[in-house]
Every structure is written in C-alpha cells, then in structure tokens.
C-alpha cells in the first residue's frame, strides 16, 4: 500500500540495466567468486578472463544428467504411498540429479545479501559480454545459471537501491532461490522433496482420495505440483512449499462440477465490524485455516490421475486413479465446497449466517455478541463474549487445522493498527 511501491512498479518496464555495464564483469566476478568459495565447489579463484569459460563448464556439468540410484530418497517416497503400493520398481526412480549445490540456508542467504553491497545496490549486468570467446553462439536455453539460480533475475529489471531494507531483502531473496518447474528438478533437491512429503502427508491425513480403477466412460483429470517459497515479513526465507493442484481447466461443466460460486466477505462488512469493535473496545482476532480447500467435501464424482513423482510400476497399480473424496486446490468447485463445509460447521454450533453478507456469522448469547467473518481461509473474530470466542476457537481448531495469528494486523493487504485513539487502516 505504500505509494513508493506503486510508483516503482510503474517504472519497472522502462528500466534499463545499461547503467552498470561498465563494471559489469567485475561484479559478475565478485558474486561468482563468493558463491564459489561458499559452496566449496571449486578451489580455483578465477580471474576476470577465466570467469566466463569457467561458468560455462559448470553449467554444462549441471546440464548433464546422472543416473543416481538413491535409495534413501526412494524409501522416503514409498513412505507416503505405503498403503497403496507393495512393490515399487526402483528403476524408474532414477531422477535426473544435477550437481547444483544445495540451496543456501536461511542464515547464509540473509547474511550473503547483507554482506554483499554490490548485489544490493546495483542491478545485475545483462549476460552479454564483448570479450566472450564464443560470441555469436546462441546460449542453450535450459542451462541453469549458477550465479543467481534464476533465468531472469529481478535485479536486471528493477532498481532496488531506493527501496527500504525489507523490500530490498525480498527482491534479493527472489533471485536467491530458484523455483523448480518440474518434478524431476524438485525431487533432486532435499528441501523441495521434504515440502512435497509434507503435502502428501496432509493429503493422506485428510483421506483425500482412494485408489480405484477408472470406470468406463469417465475421464481422469491431471494434476501437477506447484512450488513456491514463503518469505517472512522481513523478506527472509521462511519455508519451501509444495502444493498438489488439479488441472481444473480440464473439468467439464455438468460432468465434473455444477456450481462454482462461493461468496467472500464484503469489504464494507469488514469495515463496519472494525468500526463497531473500535467503538466498543472489542478485541479483534485473526485466524487462518491451513489447507482450507482440502477440507471441502466433494459431492461430484471426480477422478484424478496419480500425482507425478510417485512412481507405481506394479501391474496392480497400473491404470489406477484417485477417486476424490475431498476437494483439492485447482478444482473449480473447491472454494464452494470449502465454504459449504465451513457454513455447516458454523451452523452446527448455533451461529447464524447473516443474510446481508453470507460470510458473516453471529451468535447472541446472554445479551453478548460474537461475530466471525470469513474471507476464503482468513477469518476475523470479534465480540464481547470472551468465553464464547475461546470456545469457538477450540471448536474450529478441532474441526479444521487452524493457525492463530493473534491480533488483527494485516488483512487483504490492508494494515490494521490499533492505538488508544482507535483503529487505523492503511
């Protein structure tokens, strides 16, 4: 919401990285050297002329696929599909494993950014050098760039030196960690694999699907993994996140889904709630439901292919598909399924759904009021009945997996601060 962000974005497309071209090679060398020493990959300290060929060698190395039969990983992979699989053929587990060094740890990368004033203040030079020996030869598109880990580092396009420290950190962090685009890349990295394992465990705990043979005339919908990195408020790396999403675009209306509309809270209602809370000194609490959509029950019969990365070779699992019992991210009806589930849960504890805004639930008890408003998976709880609020919180935590975010601080990108004078939104 800060104006300088808006204006900076508006500038984004026009920015040219020519400014730093003069000292481009130097910077390149500097950052490269740093990475070299920190990853302990290569003991040689390259000179300016050596830098480029050296880097090319490395990238070639990375591109090379090595068939590694890693038993440890496989054991882990079986772990979460143990009930489904008896025999897993290990041949297929040969994932392409690059010798890309492990991604920098949280402390290291934060430190690296702080210690490296050059990357912070100057945009990275465009990868174009006059003294490149193989000038004119087109660079292979899929060569992983060891220096920044991403193909289009944001530093090439956005100046960060005018941003405040947290924003700079965030932007640098974006360039530090690469996000894998397919399962093979992700499986090669322990941190991503762990994230995938975690997601699979959640799905299993929710008993999201059962394995069945695909009935005649039905179509299974594909699915894929989506990877993101979660950053903390100060821009440092929080965690790796993998999410299994269904390819909802393959769904057909009337067959795989019927209704898709799900209401979200109106901003006006939220404003009124905050105003009332300010006038009566009610506390405002914020909650977040983990994996909200996974809680929704599917009414339709939907079949999905097995998640990629889990290899089932035995004939028993050949042609098996997942019959979904719970909703998954990506399906068209998921938000609706989740909201229906949530409404039922709220009504079960005798909360009344407001007719003006269906996302508002109110309970009157002994002349005291408790109100809860939900925006997909974010909710605000307020009222003057602290006991009832606690009961509701416990009830909801039992029903869904909840995260207590404490006092309302940040909602839909709006910062909420509370002082003696009142509540301010900015």
């Amino acid at each position, binding site marked *: *919401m*800060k*104006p*300088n962000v*808006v*204006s*900076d*974005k*508006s*500038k984004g*497309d026009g920015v040219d990285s020519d400014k730093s071209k003069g000292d481009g090679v130097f910077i390149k060398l500097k950052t490269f050297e740093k990475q070299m020493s920190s990853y302990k990959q290569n003991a040689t300290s390259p000179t300016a002329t050596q830098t480029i060929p050296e880097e090319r060698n490395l990238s070639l190395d990375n591109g090379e696929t090595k068939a590694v039969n890693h038993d440890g990983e496989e054991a882990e992979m079986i772990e979460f599909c143990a009930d489904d699989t008896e025999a897993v053929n290990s041949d297929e587990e040969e994932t392409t494993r690059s010798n890309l060094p492990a991604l920098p740890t949280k402390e290291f990368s934060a430190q690296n950014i702080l210690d490296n004033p050059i990357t912070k203040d100057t945009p990275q030079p465009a990868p174009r050098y006059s003294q490149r020996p193989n000038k004119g030869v087109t660079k292979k598109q899929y060569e992983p760039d060891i220096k920044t880990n991403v193909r289009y580092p944001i530093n090439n396009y956005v100046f960060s030196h*005018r941003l405040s420290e947290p924003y700079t950190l965030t932007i640098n962090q974006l360039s530090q960690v690469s996000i894998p685009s397919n399962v093979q890349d992700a499986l090669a990295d322990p941190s991503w694999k762990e994230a995938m394992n975690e997601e699979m465990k959640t799905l299993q705990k929710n008993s999201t699907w059962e394995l069945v043979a695909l009935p005649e005339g039905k179509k299974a919908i594909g699915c894929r993994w989506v990877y993101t990195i979660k950053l903390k408020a100060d821009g440092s790396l929080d965690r790796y996140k993998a999410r299994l999403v269904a390819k909802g675009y393959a769904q057909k209306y009337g067959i795989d889904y019927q209704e898709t509309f799900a209401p979200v809270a109106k*901003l*006006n209602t939220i*404003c*009124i709630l*905050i*105003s*009332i*809370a*300010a*006038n009566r*000194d009610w506390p405002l609490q914020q909650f977040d439901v983990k994996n909200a959509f996974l809680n929704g029950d599917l009414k339709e019969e939907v079949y999905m292919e097995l998640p990629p990365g889990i290899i089932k070779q035995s004939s028993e699992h050949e042609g098996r598909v997942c019959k979904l019992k719970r909703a998954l991210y990506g399906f068209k009806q998921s938000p609706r399924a989740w909201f229906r589930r949530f409404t039922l849960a709220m009504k079960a504890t005798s909360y009344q759904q407001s007719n003006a805004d269906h996302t508002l639930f109110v309970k009157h008890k002994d002349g005291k009021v408790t109100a809860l408003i939900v925006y997909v998976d974010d909710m605000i709880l307020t009222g003057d009945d602290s006991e009832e609020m606690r009961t509701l919180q416990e009830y909801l935590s039992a029903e869904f997996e909840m995260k207590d975010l404490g006092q309302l601080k940040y909602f839909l*990108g*709006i*910062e909420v601060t509370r002082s003696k*004078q*009142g*509540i*301010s*939104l*900015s």
Partner: protein
Amino acid sequence: MLACKPIETPIQINHRLGIFPDQIPTDIGRYQRLVGKLIYLTHTRPDITYAVGIVSQFMHAPSKEHIDTVYRILRYLKGAPSKGLLYSKNGVSNIEGYTNADWAGDQTTRKSTSGYLTFVEGNLITWRSEKQKVVARSSAEAEFRGMA
C-alpha cells in the same frame, strides 16, 4: 517517476477529461494495471476516490492526457503518504449519509457525477464517486439521483 515532485491535489480542477477522436493513445495494459492498483488503494484512501473514479472511466481507450492524470495521482500520493482510515470511539450510535452531485460534468456524454459517504457510529464505512447512469436535465435532478 521516482524523482517526481509531490503535488497538493490529486486532480486538476475542471480537468475536462474525455474521449476525443484525435487523442494520442498510450499503453493500455500499463494504464489498466496502474489504475487497477489505485482502485484497490481507494479502500483505505478516500481522498483519491474521485480522481480514481475519473481515470477509470477511460480504461478502454486511454490517451496520453489520461495517463498524465494518473501520474498526477501518484504525485499526490507521494506528497501525502501513509494516510489511512481511523476508526475511533465517538460515542455516537447512528448511521449518517452524505451525498453531493455536479451537473453534466462529463465532457462527452453530459452525465452527472455524484458521490456519497456513509458513517456508522461516527466512522466512515462506505464512500463512492460515480458517474450517473442517465443524463440529468437539472442540477436538482442530479442531486436527487445522487441520493437514490
């Protein structure tokens, strides 16, 4: 844009913006993205509601003049950063509404623009500035429509 000078007001008085056949077009995608962000910003910045309402009327055919108006809003925001809504304890428990309208303010269609704001318990809850749907034949009619 980063080095721009802040300005006191978000939009010129009597801006006379409209869509003209001889206007110089501008990058439409960029314009729409920028105005979209400003629209979201109006949720906590009622002061730019009118200006944003005006520039969002040209989303389909923005000209250089229009994007300059958007830049002016950004300059205004630079001069008045970190503002927001304050919800305080006022001790009043009623709902109040205010409205106002101009007459034939739109250059091309001569429709009127009206605005309203409502207070619940002394705190600003909703506000809007919008071009009326029909052409008002008198300022009284325009005001009346603004109320409705």
